């Protein structure tokens, strides 16, 4: 067996690792410290609001994907299926259920506390609704549902915003007060939102650095690390502000030096620029990244990095309108945008990031992403004239990852781009 290559880390990565370790450490000690926590989801997370009540967020999808990366989901999913959960449904849910049944040990190897509150921010994913019904059965704890309307007509209307704000005021905030024992302090929320907006500016600068050639970042595989603090427990914190400032300066330095993205295997020399739609296969994250890297393929934009918030088209949390901005944030998350909107977004990325084409990683678990992707493929090809590729896998169910199939498809896809370039007389890496 080959010795794994040690991944090279930037200072910002070390900082993020420390932030995560501290957070999970705090969670593991809540039975001693008395700190309260709130389980909620990445899309439509209300981290600034939770922090206003000093509640620690716990995100079940993050636990599931971390379990996938640590090779734990095979046993967790098997445990859930033994309990009667269908093989047809989302593997995040089954991983989470299996993890709970196996002692609820989190990504850092420490035990996670049971929820003091389940905040179901019902944003962009039907499964969320059932997932928290399942957790409520397990934990018998307080729960509150925030229904975030879908952008079915491609826009946020005043009625949609009012509906969300009313729920925040009349339902969510009162239960946060009750669980935390603290009064709602809107000024404190505004302070969090100011910090959110500052971090969002830097995150967008990082993501948009990929417009540069060569791109200093990989906006999909690398991108999932960049969005980590923003999408999870840290938006609105000073830690997040510092992290994104540091990350931005590292990326801008790489851009100034004309360097490509850092990967676990080293720096990629950019041959192909692609946009990626869909979540990664967490169980084979590094293997999949290497397949791209081996081809010289750099992901210059991705939709997955917008599931916890879409910032690159101008949205920022606005401290002047704290609850309205939270409503707009929720409704703007990627999977809450209708299919025509998703096609627009991907097409725009292909053009603005001068991509050679786009790839869809269609995951079996997530129908919110996957249903309609074959049409997205055709529509984006039609609009941009760039070729689309399609691979299939799963979020955390390793049974659906066929390395040989995926590698074969990727190689064929990049060969096709190379041949197209040859036919038009454009050198590889200079489209």
């Amino acid at each position, binding site marked *: 067996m080959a010795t794994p290559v040690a991944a090279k880390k930037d200072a910002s990565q070390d900082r993020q690792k420390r932030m995560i370790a501290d957070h999970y450490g705090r969670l593991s000690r809540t039975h001693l410290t008395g700190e309260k926590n709130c389980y909620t989801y990445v899309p439509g997370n209300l981290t600034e609001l939770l922090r206003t009540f000093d509640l620690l967020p716990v995100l079940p999808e993050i636990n599931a994907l971390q379990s996938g990366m640590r090779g734990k989901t095979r046993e967790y999913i098997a445990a859930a299926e033994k309990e009667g959960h269908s093989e047809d*449904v989302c593997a995040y849910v089954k991983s989470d259920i299996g993890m709970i049944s196996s002692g609820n040990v989190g990504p850092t190897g420490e035990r996670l506390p049971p929820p003091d509150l389940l905040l179901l921010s019902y944003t962009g994913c039907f499964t969320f609704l059932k997932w928290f019904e399942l957790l409520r059965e397990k934990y018998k704890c307080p729960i509150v*549902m925030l229904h975030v309307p879908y952008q079915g007509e491609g826009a946020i209307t005043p*009625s949609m915003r009012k509906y969300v704000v009313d729920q925040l005021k009349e339902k969510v905030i009162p239960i946060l007060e009750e669980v935390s024992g603290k009064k709602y302090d809107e000024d404190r929320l505004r302070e969090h939102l100011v910090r959110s907006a500052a971090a969002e500016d830097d995150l967008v600068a990082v993501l948009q650095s990929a417009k540069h050639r060569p791109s200093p970042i990989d906006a999909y595989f690398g991108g999932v690390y960049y969005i980590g603090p923003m999408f999870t427990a840290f938006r609105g914190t000073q830690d997040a502000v510092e992290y994104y400032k540091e990350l931005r300066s590292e990326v801008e330095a790489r851009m100034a030096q004309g360097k490509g993205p850092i990967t676990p295997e080293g720096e990629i020399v950019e041959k192909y620029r692609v946009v990626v739609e869909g979540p990664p296969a967490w169980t084979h994250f590094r293997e999949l990244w290497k397949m791209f890297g081996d081809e010289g393929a750099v992901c210059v934009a991705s939709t997955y990095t917008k599931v916890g918030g879409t910032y690159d088209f101008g949205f920022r949390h606005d401290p002047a309108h704290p609850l309205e901005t939270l409503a707009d944030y929720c409704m703007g998350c990627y999977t809450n945008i209708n299919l025509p909107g998703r096609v627009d977004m991907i097409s725009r990325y292909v053009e603005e990031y001068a991509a050679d084409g786009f790839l869809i990683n269609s995951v079996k678990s997530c129908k919110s992403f*996957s*249903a309609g992707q074959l*049409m997205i493929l055709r529509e984006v090809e039609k609009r941009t004239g760039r070729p689309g590729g399609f691979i*299939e896998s799963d979020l955390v169910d390793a049974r659906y990852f066929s390395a040989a199939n995926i590698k074969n498809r990727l190689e064929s896809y990049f060969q096709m781009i190379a041949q197209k370039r040859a036919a038009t007389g454009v050198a590889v890496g200079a489209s």
Partner: protein
Amino acid sequence: MTTSGLKDLVAGADALYRDYRLGSVRAWKERTGGLAIGHMPVYAPREALHAMGVLPVGIMGASDDLEIIRGDAYYQSYICHIPRSTIELALNGSLDPLDGMLFPAICDVIRNLSGMWKMMFKDKLVRYLDVPQDFDRARGAAFWRGEIVSLCAELAERGAKPLDMEALRRSIAVYNDHRRAVRGLYDLRKDEPWKVPTAELYPILRAGLVMPVEEHLAMLGAYRTMVEADATRRPMDLARVVLVGSFCEQPPLGLIKTLERSGCYIVDDDFVQIHRFILGDVSTEGDPLDALARAFTEHAIEHPTKWCEKEKGADLVDRVKASGAGGVLFCAPSFCDPALLDQPMAVAAMDRHSIPWTAFKYSENTGQFQVIREQAGTFADSIQLWSTV
């Protein structure tokens, strides 16, 4: 009434719903010049459409009657079957008489189908119906009322009569009559299941999706009169079961017949639920739009597509008790998130109350029933022989 009259009625209903080219809808449009608007399961505010002179048309896939060729090109293998047949029907021209389509918030697949429809049929009205998951009057019902008003405005722009409150009140009253008639048949089946075989009731219910409500009311009445008068229908020693999970993609009729032949009286089910989604009458007093919106938030059935604020599975326990069933068939379509994610919680509730259950999956074009027949038959036998429920 004659047995042949009854057979003709059921055969007529069967032919109506299996006419996927919507002959009855085409004829209605020629006769009235009105708009016809399709809707996917499981709920749509049909009263509002009716009040505007619009014919609501329920689309529930194409069962095992249609070979899917182009529809499969739109979906990966792990997506359920109903969107494939729905797209196939649209692409082969069957849905041409429809001036639009409504996609209620059932799951992410149907939600995303609304976006696909927007891209594929740009000249048609296409709406995602974001029914509220907050059931408070001032929040959820108010939001839903606004959505209905917005839908009505769009219909009016396309030539429907403007929404008139008195007309809406009358439409609510007609649908109240319809709900009572459907509930009456369900009660009759519960009390005397040998008189109302589900293999007959099902086509009668499906026919109601492609015809005006007034005509369907007459059909329901005629069917009831005929089965009550049919002295040849005698009780048999079969197991009484509640069937759940089949609220969106429908099983082929052959599967329903198979279950009955295997020894089951289906005494409650989830088929064509739009006819029974609202419990009781919608108020015809006060603001009818308000009443229609509140019917959903306050008077609708518990459902896997809705946020459940109560104890999970309690409604199913109640249904089992109310129908005098001896067990539950969990009969869900493959890859159906609402049904399959809900199932473990419903199963736990059955176990807590010692209610026997069995589970299997299907797709709308399932053609092999032998395994299901054996499973259901064994289950029916076990209920008959050993159940203490």
